[in-house]
């Protein structure tokens, strides 16, 4: 049996790495991948707590998160394609029209 603390610590590390990727990288595809990594870290925490308290609801939440992530990736990559078609670039600094 894995100590739940270790699983939650791993989840925190992965979430941290995802945050760093989303904040520092400028490639829109890599930013999307970092967001996927953050979602996965949250999933791991949910699964760990679901095992800790013997409650399956956490696993069902993870199921929903996976569905939302799939939908998000489909729409996000559609936006990336549209952006690349208009700007010939996937660099977020080239898409700063709405920037304050």
């Amino acid at each position: 049996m894995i100590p739940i603390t270790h699983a939650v610590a791993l989840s925190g590390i992965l979430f941290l790495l995802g945050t760093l990727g989303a904040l520092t990288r400028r490639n829109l595809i890599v930013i999307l991948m970092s967001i996927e990594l953050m979602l996965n870290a949250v999933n791991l925490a949910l699964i760990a707590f679901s095992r800790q308290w013997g409650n399956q609801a956490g696993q069902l939440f993870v199921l929903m998160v996976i569905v939302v992530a799939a939908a998000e990736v489909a729409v996000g990559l559609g936006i990336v394609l549209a952006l690349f078609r208009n700007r010939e670039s996937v660099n977020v600094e080239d898409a700063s029209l709405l920037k304050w």
Partner: protein
Amino acid sequence: MTLWLFYFFAFVAIAGALGMLLNTRNTVAGALSLVATMCSLGAIYVQLDAYLIGALQIMVYAGAILVLFLFVVMLLNLRQDALPGARFAKPLLATLAAAALGAGFLTLLPGAFGPAAEIAEGFGGYRAVGAELFTDYVLAFEVTSLLLLSAMIGAVILAKRKIDG
């Protein structure tokens, strides 16, 4: 033995995430190292008695979502200059924010949670999860279908060349 397997998969997961994060030249390699992360997370889910979710993780994340990423990366045929190198815009600020987040995690993480609850036979299997999904959470499941439909329509419209073409 189980604990060492967990450490191995955790190491692979972190290494894959770092590979995605630090690889600034080749997006395809970054996506492939994220596949390693997703697969080892699936293995960790199985170790935490989430058998169905572990299988779905590998099928949906490693199999579908990251293949979609690879398709788009290869479709765009990014030239070298379209991929900015290690040009971090506000590296100090981002690192500080991440460090604060990590410090918060470490402070909030208790040393131990106590013994894990006793679980029934078949916990996390397709039968138990499915029974709960289609009774208590059936509304959420049905709303999911609407979400997927709207995402599909949105993706098709976004990726079309012209709206009326």
